[in-house]
């Protein structure tokens, strides 16, 4: 299950975020949402998990119609 982990330092108010369980740039959507609310982060790093690109299996179905002649 995808998870966004936020860490708030109550002494300083500093906010950190770590996205788990989303391989590939799909986690960019979550990061974009957070940036909309917080602005550009002081530090940003793509984890190894991020670099795992999801494999896409294209499925093509062909329908053959018989023509009545």
């Amino acid at each position, binding site marked *: 299950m995808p998870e966004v982990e936020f860490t708030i330092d109550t002494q300083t108010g500093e906010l950190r975020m770590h996205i788990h369980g989303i391989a590939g740039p799909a986690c960019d959507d979550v990061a974009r949402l957070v940036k*909309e609310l917080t602005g550009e982060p002081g530090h940003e790093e793509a984890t190894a998990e991020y670099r795992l690109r999801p494999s896409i299996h294209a499925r093509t179905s062909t329908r053959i119609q018989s023509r009545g002649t």
Partner: protein
Amino acid sequence: MSRYLAYPEIVFRDRELMLAALAQLGFAQVEEGEDLPLFGYHGDRRVETAALVVRRQHIGRWSNDLGFARSAQGYYPIVSDYDRETLLGGTFLSRLRVTYAERVVETVRTRLRGTVQRATEGSVVKLRVRY
């Protein structure tokens, strides 16, 4: 006379969340506009201006106006050194950041239609949003 200090490194990107965080801390009455003047506790007008202002009457007897200026990145606080040291026991800026951050988490949770788990480890709060 207390001087004003700007904190451009502390940015609140979202106006709605910032107003909500201020209200949660007890500062619900906020004046909005452009280049609003800031006044010190004597009623003396300062050179600094802001886009959002909590007037000193809503803060405390010896307080100065509390301002938030707008930049391309968001709103940043302009606080007198007196208020920085005394407001909410000197924790105003950090508490505003914490309150704002918690509202960010709640907004993310709502938009992702997820659930949140909260855990506290010393002075650190961990909030896990699962969806």
